[in-house]
């Protein structure tokens, strides 16, 4: 072994599955001079990889997670450490049976095809030691398997070393990470200092501590996952190898049972959340077993033993089978259940690859290496992006509250719209009290409390009668109200008032501001002062990085408005591209401005009654903005709409927001103004107009051409992704974004069912539809179109299916419903000529 280097191109900290994989993939991406270190010994430095149960179930409702997992399985197979066992998620309740049907559909959406629903007897055939009388059925995935994650890490590490591009030092603890002028400069270790401009933290449960050394934040918490190993199991004594029977996830009890040689491992996510602080984790020297294998707390496992006994009495009830090993194993939990990947927003050159479990480790290593090399990964990682967190979401209190709440949902039945209960009420708009008085049902967005609908609008249900639409199935109607549809219709008939305060608002100013925004934006930003431009921001490969609006407020002053959920990631992208000469500045104005949307055919009448400024069609045309007086307030009015109707976004200093609401509310009463929730703004109004949403339709895996947004000529000026975009315009698109309507909602049980999004779009016979890039078709967004009386779905379809009138099907909860392609491209279903928005 040569001496410890004094400089490196990149230092990867952590020799668990993630660090090994990341370092290896960096060498594959052409990096040389990569240094991988760990404070512990090799091959098991004592982190969570070392005690992981090491099994992989590929199917998840999240596309991003499934893709990372499938890529990981591919790598584990290539490394020769994957043993296929099959796996069964069993249901003990009717609700779970439906959830397993939903998993069938997610499997099809993400391309995991070796799945099946099993009867209890079929489960028993595969797992003869199960008591099939306590279950109602199972969801079988043949490609489930177990891996040797320590071996995988070793092989990757050794390959990296063999290439000459990677040096590895164990028993090397990081004692400091030096940052100068916002960029990583050096890692200080117990073996000496290393000068470097790039550091990746892959330290699992210790990651927050490492990030803090650099003044950054990785908001995860170590948490306990209890596991016992019982044996020797007489039935397993003759087993060849590690595992011969499928792994069983007892979903309703939040537990799993899996053969491990002659033993049976029983793990649980059912106990009370037991959270640690990274600083509380014992050192290697102090730990009795390893730092992440903490003493078992028997009292937390009592119920779990009974439940395991119920399910597998033959083994668990055998007096000869002893509890040989029992730990409180530490793993990483995050406030939203997703990994924490990417460059930290606080420190340039400091990357995080944390909160990653064994099942997605190698995939994450590859994806982060791509991201570090090319500025983006093949898999869209926006839901895992470390830049997604708003400051309050990185507090210890928030992380612990949400991690604790999420822990018991590890195997939970989580509705796509399910709301968090803990740590709510953090960000309140100035309209909050008004909304509460109207019976607002609040959903959370980026910490903001936003009305999803208003119970006070229940009277509209009668007014609109049958046009409102009802949902018969509890699942479809959960986190939903027919009032949303009624609010929608009232908005289309009269006018609606929307709280849009969750917008993220960034002002960009200075002589370099225009060049900066031109460089980021697909569309022409050099427009007259007072114009509003809706534009995507693209990745280097021409996929979607963001979509947002930019107002030109002055020659050298612009306001960027984007969705709250991705606001912080968009801000990082903006800051990352600031000119070095200081000629442009960015300020986060999110907490300075409250925003109301006023839309509907009566919007102009309402606004006109409050202002002497010209708000006529000629005086205030579509896609323009300017400051007007509304009563005693000066309000920045922007004539655009995400619900496709006449009206304005109205920006007002936050302390004057309540006054603006009151003025509009009062002036609106004679016109029948209703308060409308985000149910209208984000779903019904948007879908009727076929408006796309970032994170749904718009992801880095799809192009502008495929999204049907390549209208007009490409601007002269250079912008990120331009070269790729020009190429995309020359190519035949592999898929086109289409709008579909559901033809028949009746299920086999006779109930009418309503899709919620992310379901596979298939042929009428149920055949999977895959484009030539290998991407399966799935519902990117789903929701009612009350003005049309249709349930609307959006989906990317390959050209042969992207034909108006094409008859296809959507698979919802493992049943087929006929759908028809209504629109190919971006022409709205409702008001296709856009007469309303331009009126």
């Amino acid at each position, binding site marked *: 072994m040569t001496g410890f280097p004094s400089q490196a191109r990149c230092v990867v900290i952590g020799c668990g599955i993630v660090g090994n994989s990341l370092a290896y993939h960096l060498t594959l991406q052409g990096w040389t001079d990569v240094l991988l270190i760990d404070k512990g010994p090799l091959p098991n430095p004592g982190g969570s990889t070392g005690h992981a149960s090491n099994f992989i179930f590929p199917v998840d409702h999240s596309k991003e997670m499934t893709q990372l997992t499938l890529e990981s399985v591919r790598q584990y197979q290539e490394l020769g450490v994957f043993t296929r066992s099959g796996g069964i998620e069993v249901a003990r309740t009717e609700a779970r049976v439906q959830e397993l049907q939903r998993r069938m559909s997610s499997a099809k959406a993400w391309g995991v095809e070796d799945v099946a629903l099993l009867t209890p007897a079929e489960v028993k055939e595969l797992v003869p030691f199960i008591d099939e009388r306590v279950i109602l059925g199972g969801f079988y995935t043949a490609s489930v398997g177990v891996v040797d994650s320590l071996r995988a890490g070793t092989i990757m590490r050794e390959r990296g070393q063999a290439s000459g591009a990677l040096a590895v030092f164990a028993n090397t603890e990081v004692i400091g990470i030096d940052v100068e002028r916002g960029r990583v400069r050096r890692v200080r270790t117990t073996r000496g200092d290393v000068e470097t401009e790039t550091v990746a933290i892959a330290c699992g449960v210790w990651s927050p501590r490492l990030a803090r050394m650099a003044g950054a934040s990785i908001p995860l918490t170590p948490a306990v996952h209890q596991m016992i190993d019982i044996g020797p199991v007489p039935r397993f004594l003759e087993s060849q190898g590690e595992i011969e029977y499928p792994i069983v996830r007892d979903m309703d009890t939040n537990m799993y049972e899996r053969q491990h040689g002659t033993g049976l491992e029983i793990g649980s996510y059912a106990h009370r959340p037991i959270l640690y602080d990274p600083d509380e984790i014992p050192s290697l020297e*102090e*730990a*009795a077993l390893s730092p992440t294998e903490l*003493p*078992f707390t028997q009292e937390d496992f009592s119920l779990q*033993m009974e439940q395991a006994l119920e399910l597998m009495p033959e083994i668990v009830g055998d*007096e*000869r089978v*002893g*509890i040989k090993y029992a730990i409180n194993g530490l793993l990483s939990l995050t406030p939203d259940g997703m990994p924490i990947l990417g460059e930290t927003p606080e420190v340039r050159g400091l990357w995080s690859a944390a909160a990653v479990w064994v099942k997605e480790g190698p995939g994450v290593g590859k994806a982060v290496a791509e991201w570090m090399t090319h500025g983006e990964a093949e898999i869209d990682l926006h839901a895992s992006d470390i830049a997604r967190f708003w400051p309050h979401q990185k507090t210890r209190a928030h992380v612990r509250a949400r991690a604790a709440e999420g822990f018991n949902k590890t195997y939970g039945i989580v509705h796509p719209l399910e709301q968090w209960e803990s740590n709510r009420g953090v960000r309140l708009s100035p309209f909050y009290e008004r909304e509460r008085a109207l019976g607002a049902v609040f959903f959370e967005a980026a910490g903001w409390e936003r009305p999803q609908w208003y119970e006070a609008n229940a009277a509209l249900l009668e007014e609109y009668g049958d046009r409102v639409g009802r949902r018969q199935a509890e699942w479809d109607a959960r986190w939903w109200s027919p009032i949303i549809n009624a609010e929608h219709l009232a908005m289309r008939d009269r006018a609606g008032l929307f709280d849009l305060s969750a917008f993220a608002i960034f002002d960009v100013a200075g002589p370099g501001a225009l060049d900066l925004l031109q460089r980021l934006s697909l569309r022409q930003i050099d427009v007259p002062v007072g114009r509003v431009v809706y534009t995507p921001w693209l990745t280097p490969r021409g996929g979607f990085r963001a979509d947002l609006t930019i107002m030109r407020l002055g020659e050298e002053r612009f306001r960027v408005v984007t969705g709250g959920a991705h606001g912080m990631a968009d801000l990082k992208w903006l800051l990352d591209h600031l000119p070095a000469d200081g000629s442009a500045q960015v300020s986060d104005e999110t907490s300075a401005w409250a925003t109301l949307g006023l839309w509907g055919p009566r919007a102009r009448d309402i606004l006109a009654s409050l202002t002497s400024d010209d708000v006529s069609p000629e005086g205030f045309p579509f896609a323009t903005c300017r400051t007007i007086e509304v009563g005693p307030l000066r309000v920045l009015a922007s004539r655009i709409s995400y619900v496709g109707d006449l009206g304005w976004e109205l920006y007002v200093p936050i302390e004057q927001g309540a006054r603006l609401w009151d003025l509009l509310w009062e002036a609106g009463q004679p016109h029948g103004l209703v308060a409308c929730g985000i149910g209208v703004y984000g779903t019904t109004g948007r879908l009727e107009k076929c408006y796309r949403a970032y994170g749904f339709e718009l992801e880095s895996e799809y192009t502008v051409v495929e999204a049907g947004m390549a209208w007009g000529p490409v601007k002269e000026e250079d912008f990120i992704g331009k070269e790729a975009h020009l190429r995309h315009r020359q190519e035949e698109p592999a898929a086109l974004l289409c709008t579909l309507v559901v033809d028949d909602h009746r299920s086999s049980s006779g109930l009418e069912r309503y899709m919620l999004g992310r379901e596979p779009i298939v042929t009428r016979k149920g055949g999977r539809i895959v484009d030539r890039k290998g991407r399966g078709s799935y519902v990117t967004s789903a929701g009612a179109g009350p003005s049309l009386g249709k349930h609307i779905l959006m989906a990317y379809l390959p050209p042969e299916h992207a034909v108006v009138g094409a008859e296809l099907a959507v698979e919802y909860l493992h049943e087929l419903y006929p759908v028809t392609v209504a629109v190919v491209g971006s022409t709205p279903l409702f008001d296709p000529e856009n007469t309303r928005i331009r009126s």
Partner: protein
Amino acid sequence: MRVLVCVKRVPMTGGRIVLTPDQREIETRHLGFTVSPHEECAVEEAVRLIETHGGESVVLTLGPPQAEEQLRDAMAIGVDRAIHLVTDGEEWDPQATAAAIVEAIEVERRVGGDFDLYLFGNESADAGNYQVGIRVAYSLGLPVVTGVKALAVEGDRLRLEREAGAARDLYEVPLPAVVTVLEGINLPRYPSVPGRMRAQRKPIASSTPVRPTPRLEKVRLVVPESQRKEAEILGHGPQAAPRVVELLAELGVLP
């Protein structure tokens, strides 16, 4: 027969032992708890005796409320019930501990009759005073054999073995008697899941003895210097072979 086995809750140390800031205790923040290996064997021995001869086994501890965990551990592998002399966590010296145990035994005798055998570990894993079993025997006026590596009941007598260098000492004592055992007398079993579940329902009789004024005072603990694990690298690859052979010869394991 009736067997009483006594155990003590101690920290399950793994690597480096860390002391509390006042240096009077072992820092147990990260540690689990257990009983000494000798006591584990004593519990196993008690369970086996009852399995063979019938009767009742009882486990006793003097310790903090959390010591219930060690009582349940013993009951999980088959002990029938437990007696918990609950302390406030302060260390009791051997004399006081023995006195409290004797008092509890007297109570038991009045309620449930005499025990035939009192089993102890040879010494506790933490304090290591080697006294409690002997003091209890003395107070009860019973014979005591310590350091026992084999035990058999023959009628109303016990046949016991102790290691004496390469040979063995044999003892025969009449029951009732006190025996302190050494690790290795048996191989303790793991608890089964049903055993664990039964243990939750088995009775524990708790009482709170008064701690007498200690006659021994713990001033502070010192971690010995030589605790570091050391490894000597004999060489790498085939070149290391001669040195390995040399070492094996030194150890006398080569013919």
